[in-house]
């Protein structure tokens, strides 16, 4: 399998302000089994990018049940959340060391914790090729065969995107509730099939194009890194895509 990654911060933001995250295991992508985790830190929360990174990290490192069992999914989220207090403590200590202690306006956000959406996909290119995916929120997976969309998960229409998707939080997460809310799906892979995992702004664009009868796959496949950035600029300027962090992981057999 071959994985290709494109990502970009919001227009007007620096790379350091990019708050999506992605992890692949193995990182090279060149194996018969591949795990892909893509997370999108909620922009209104503090340290959202770090939480997205922690979630993606935990899922890339997790095995089967994280991808196809609600309790396994919740347990993997709990693994990421368990590390959160140490991560915040390290952040606060670093701010102190740099002579920039926390200000009054940062404390409420830190106390509330960080939030992110997550899509985790396990792809198996062995004897029974297929994928298993688990998601909370609006980071999406598209399964494409011969230029046609076979499956859109977990959001199925462009109209469903908004500013309040379901989110995984760092604090007080109830594993029972997460297990109840997580959405699971699987699919069989055929020869030449392609999977696209992406965060919400691009996912909304993909679904809008598809609904308009203008399949977007050739456009996306034809872009290299530099071309991707220019193309995003153009789509955002034309207001065909919301100004948001964008992440795309394309996996081809």
């Amino acid at each position, binding site marked *: 399998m071959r994985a290709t990654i494109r990502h970009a911060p919001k227009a007007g933001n620096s790379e350091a302000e990019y708050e999506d995250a992605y992890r692949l295991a193995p990182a090279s992508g060149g194996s018969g089994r591949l795990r892909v985790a893509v997370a999108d830190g*909620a922009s*209104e929360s503090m340290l959202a990018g770090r939480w997205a990174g922690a979630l993606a990290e935990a899922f890339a490192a997790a095995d089967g049940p994280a991808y196809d069992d609600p309790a396994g999914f919740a347990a993997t989220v709990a693994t990421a959340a368990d590390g959160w207090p140490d991560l915040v403590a390290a952040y606060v200590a670093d701010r102190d060391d740099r002579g920039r202690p926390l200000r*009054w*306006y940062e*404390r409420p*956000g830190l106390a509330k914790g960080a939030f992110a959406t997550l899509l985790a996909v396990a792809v198996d290119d062995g004897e029974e090729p297929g994928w298993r995916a688990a998601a909370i929120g609006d980071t999406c997976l598209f399964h494409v065969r011969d230029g046609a969309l076979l499956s859109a998960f977990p959001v199925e229409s462009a109209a469903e995107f908004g500013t*309040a998707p379901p989110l995984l939080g760092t604090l007080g997460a109830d594993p029972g509730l997460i297990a109840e809310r997580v959405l699971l799906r699987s699919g069989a892979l055929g020869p030449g099939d392609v999977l696209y995992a992406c965060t919400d702004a691009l996912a909304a664009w993909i679904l809008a194009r598809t609904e308009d009868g203008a399949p977007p796959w050739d456009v996306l496949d034809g872009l290299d890194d530099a071309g991707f950035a220019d193309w995003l600029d153009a789509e955002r300027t034309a207001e065909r895509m919301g100004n948001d962090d964008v992440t795309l992981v394309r996996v081809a057999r």
Partner: protein
Amino acid sequence: MTYQAEISRANPSCFIFLVDQSASMVDPIGGSGGVTARKHEVVADALNRLLTEIAIKCAKEEGVRDYFHVAVIGYGARSAAPALGGDLAGRRLVPISELADHPLRLEERVKKEPDGAGGLVEVTTQFPVWIEPVANGATPMCQALAEAKALVAEWITQHPRGFPPIVLNLTDGEANDGDPVAVADELRLLGTDDGEALLFNLHVSDAGGSPVTFPDSDAGLPDAYARTLFAMSSELPPHMQSYARQNGYPIGETAHGFVYNADVVSLVQFLDIGTRALALR
């Protein structure tokens, strides 16, 4: 579609707060009967909490992002004039990051919060203060609205495609420099490509009656001051109505940005600056 423009550092919006600092504001809310909160204290507290909420909403790891610029105009003895003090004295529109870094002072307040084991624990939080209660002189509300109109006009020239300015007037409604409705109408006609400027009113009153939040009509409002302020208030745009409902306000299709003797701070949560930080439900 209106009121859909992105609010970001590249496309900021602005808040203009008008705070009534006239002599009548010293009266207690709800008349006599043991109520101790006075109108000028209530509006100063509401304004400090609004500014706090906006700063917190815009806070990220390396400081407060300038999604909004904010002006506070006081009206009373000194006519209508910039009301921020300290390092911000005399300033009109101030980026929210600068405002966040320059309160007059930070007060320590003790709050009781759940301790996670069924009990309560006392937590000390910092509460910034930018505005002190003031009650002195006449009520030049028309002048204050004219000042807001000038600020709005200047802002929309610089940000013609942005989310429209929001003006919030905090008052007991007893204008004595003319009829404020005309200038309010003129203000609301100004706008950007994204919609007309929004004028909202917080009415603090000693007339009593039940608190009212974002009503559809002026039926049931206690007096002419309340009805006038209601008439001056913009309707809440659809997406703000939707957030109001999510925040538990059972409002109608023509809900106005008018609040009578009730909390107005939740208004900040009706604005979008990105994905909301809400726990799974």
